[in-house]
């Protein structure tokens, strides 16, 4: 069976319903069993501006937005002018002929002007629906799924409205059938419907699966979707969801809840994380297990709130004064986010330290399909040495109730692993103070009367020791592609999908053998394994979505390894496969060792 792989672009201004139109299409495709991947380029503005949604679908997995579009739905002149010239050969442009004028289209691009007044009548809001009908027709998809969606959407407004809108969808469909040449391929129909979700939903659902009972947030793009999911599902899942006064309050509240025994989580973006960083140190010091997600966006400062970047790695590495254990992980896809959150909760519960997740706008607001069977809501739960008053923790309330002034329990016991059994407040016989001042094994401050350099050293080493074992518990990155290759592409986090496709394209289009290493665990870092792979690579090129090469420098700090080349992008937009392909080619040709691909689409 030939591979079908196509992309639809929908452009216009904020407020024209682009996201929901894209969503309808994504659902229709996913229900057919197609894999989809969508990315919405928009602005920090409620109405106006220019929004461009790319929706790619295939019968094969698609993990990035691809290189171009087969269908364009420009909703205003601006969108037409920006995107028409970039359309692929043999593509179709569906637009309102009463409103928009096409410019010069590239060769082979077919214009599909629709007389929207005629099709939609007085209902000006329905042009999107008519266009969707036409698009389905061009793709050889039957109109019923669209009609069903439209019917559901307008159900509340009564039968007449439903009939009107369904009629419009159908008329759009038929008009296209009568007037336009269908595309050269048809969107296939596969057996198994796919689920569609954003990265933020994946984070939230991962949290729910992990047993999060406390979620706090202060709204901040592009992390707000997590709060929204949590708020919407709070009552049904028994999760306490709080919108707090600021991010400082968020992190401190989450620490309070975690200290109390809940699995507790929060998500924010770089600026909010900066405000949380002092409290991250507190979690390190009092050994409270918390999970915090930083959904990166283009910085510095407020930056470009609706644009993507991988610019916070060093911020997370350096978060909080002093040295203390923290785990940092950069999942590579929406599904990976879903699975990583429960895994991280197990680690932070076992190692009693903060766990930080690096997501970014591309992953978190990007939509993709996953096989519903992969959404496992019953992950393994390990809570480590936890003493809950109802005996629910795996540590169990083994310490007998030793009277009020019990002193046998040492919250910060200096054990060989560095891990000390953790009782939560409320457990009889385990009273202690959790202090951010340096403290002794029993919690007594050693910052005032009882300072003691030997004890201070002991406690620093106790906490530090915990990190030794984490490394063996998480998987080292695996090389993807042939073991011997001309180029090894190294990425981290959200770039996995696009790098993989670039590797394939290099082979098929350029005859260049490449392989790929995607690093997920930042702290702890598999320095040895990664160092070994890279040392035996012919040419290592690091791909990352930032200006200064944050990962390249971190990789060197942990391994001493200096990459041969770099591909970076810091214009707010994600990589497209051809950006990487072309950059690799120019580097192999010896033209540069630092490529900064130009984003051709003006969004």
């Amino acid at each position: 069976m030939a591979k079908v792989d196509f992309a639809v672009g929908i452009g216009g201004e904020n407020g024209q319903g682009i996201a929901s139109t894209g969503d309808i299409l994504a659902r229709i495709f996913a229900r057919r069993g197609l894999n989809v991947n969508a990315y919405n380029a928009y602005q920090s503005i409620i109405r106006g501006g220019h929004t461009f949604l790319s929706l790619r679908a295939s019968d094969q997995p698609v993990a990035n937005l691809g290189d171009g579009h087969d269908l364009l739905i420009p909703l205003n002149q601006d969108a037409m002018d920006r995107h028409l010239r970039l359309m692929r050969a043999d593509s179709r442009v569906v637009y309102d002929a009463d409103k928009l004028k096409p410019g010069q289209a590239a060769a082979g691009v077919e214009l599909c002007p629709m007389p929207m007044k005629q099709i939609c009548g007085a209902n000006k809001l329905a042009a999107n629906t008519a266009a969707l009908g036409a698009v389905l027709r061009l793709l050889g998809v039957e109109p019923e799924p669209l009609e069903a969606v439209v019917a559901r959407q307008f159900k509340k407004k009564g039968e007449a409205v439903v009939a009107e809108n369904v009629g419009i969808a159908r008329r759009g469909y038929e008009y296209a059938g009568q007037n336009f040449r269908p595309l050269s391929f048809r969107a296939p129909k596969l057996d198994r419907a796919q689920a569609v979700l954003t990265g933020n939903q994946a984070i939230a659902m991962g949290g729910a699966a992990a047993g999060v009972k406390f979620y706090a947030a202060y709204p901040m793009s592009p992390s707000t979707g997590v709060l929204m999911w949590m708020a919407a599902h709070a009552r049904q899942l028994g999760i306490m969801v709080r919108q707090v006064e600021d991010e400082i309050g968020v992190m401190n509240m989450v620490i309070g809840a975690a200290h109390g025994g809940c699995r507790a989580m929060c998500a924010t973006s770089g600026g909010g994380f900066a405000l949380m960083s002092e409290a991250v140190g507190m979690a390190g010091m009092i050994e409270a297990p918390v999970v915090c997600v930083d959904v990166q966006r283009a910085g510095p400062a407020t930056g470009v709130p609706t644009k993507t970047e991988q610019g916070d790695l060093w911020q997370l590495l350096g978060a909080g004064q002093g040295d203390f254990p923290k785990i940092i992980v950069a999942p590579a896809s929406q599904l990976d986010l879903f699975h990583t959150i429960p895994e991280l909760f197990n680690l932070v519960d076992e190692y009693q330290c903060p766990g930080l997740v690096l997501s970014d706008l591309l992953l978190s607001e990007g939509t993709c399909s996953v096989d519903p069977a992969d959404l496992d809501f019953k992950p393994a739960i390990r809570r480590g040495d936890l003493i809950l008053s109802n005996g629910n923790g795996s540590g169990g309330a083994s310490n007998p109730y030793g009277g009020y002034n019990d002193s046998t329990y040492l919250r910060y016991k200096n054990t060989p692993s560095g891990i000390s059994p953790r009782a939560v407040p409320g457990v009889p016989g385990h009273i202690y103070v959790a202090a951010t001042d340096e403290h002794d094994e029993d919690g007594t401050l050693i910052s005032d009367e009882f300072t003691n350099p030997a004890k201070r050293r002991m406690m620093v080493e106790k906490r530090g020791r915990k990190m030794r074992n984490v490394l063996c518990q998480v998987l080292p990155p695996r090389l993807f592609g042939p073991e011997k290759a001309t180029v090894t592409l190294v990425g981290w986090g959200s770039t996995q999908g696009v790098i993989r496709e670039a590797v394939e394209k290099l082979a098929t289009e350029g005859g260049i053998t490449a392989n790929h290493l995607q690093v997920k665990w930042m702290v702890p870092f598999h320095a040895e394994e990664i160092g070994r792979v890279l040392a035996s690579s012919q040419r290592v090129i690091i791909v990352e979505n930032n200006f200064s090469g944050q990962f390249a420098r971190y990789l060197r700090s942990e391994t001493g390894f200096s990459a041969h080349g770099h591909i970076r992008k810091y214009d707010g937009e994600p990589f497209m496969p051809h950006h990487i392909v072309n950059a690799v080619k120019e580097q192999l040709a010896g033209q540069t060792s630092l490529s900064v691909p130009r984003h051709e689409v003006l969004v």
Partner: protein
Amino acid sequence: MSTALQVEPTIETSKSGAQLVKDTYKGKVHPDWCPGCGDFSVLSALQTALLELRLSPHQVVVISGIGCSSNLPGFINTYGMHTLHGRSLAVGVGLKLANHELKVICVGGDGDGYGIGGNHFLHTLRRNVDLTYIVMDNQIYGLTTGQTSPTSVKGMKTKSTPHGNVENPINPIPLAMVGGATYVARGFSGKQKHLVELFKGAITHHGFALVDVFSPCVTYNKDNTYQWFNPRVKPLEEQGHDPTDFHKALDKGYQFGEEVPIGLFWKRNDLPTLEDLEPVLHDGGGPLAFRGLGIPGEQCRALIQELL
């Protein structure tokens, strides 16, 4: 002492065989405050209040920020947290919601609570979370050796204002009232028994309770000393003050001169707490902290269904 302030011990008593006595609440470590520091008296009053309310140490969590006063959790035998400077309320709310069966008592200094912690103060007030907040207000930064605090009086000379403070101080009583606290009181370290009653009232109050305590710093505050306060403080309970009269309470709260009223300024019982309004806490599952982590199968299916 007016009886209006007397509080009956209505709270669950210890289930253990151990006898509750004042020493039960003695911490591992002897307080290292300067001799004569007002905070000794606050500690002692709190211990007495807990005893009189028959609260077992493990049912109580005392949460502080950073400062001389914030060292209190180390000196009392209850669960304790010694958080970051200014953050005790945020941590306390998180802990309270995680386990709403605990008695959460946040404590700290004026700098901690009204200075760096001001935003959490403002927003905790309005949320009416059921916890007690005790501020040891010495009108100075003690632990950092004597700089101006948000409650330092205008003109006061400190290490950071050697020519006198030019800022108008915060007045926590009217501020807390207007901010939405449902129990607003002021105590004085020199009046132990009165303080005990205020604390008992605050701890048993269903909602957010603030007790601002004039707790003199004998080392760095040479203006507002025991000697200064002693002749001035006048318990409201002796003046027939009605703590449901908002405007009167404000006026009393502003008084700071020849006469300094202490006692319960303001109290209302008609406002539900945040916990009351969060159905998640009322489905019979007990504290969130102790609930099972799994999601029931039909919920999982529903969540996936949403994505199809």
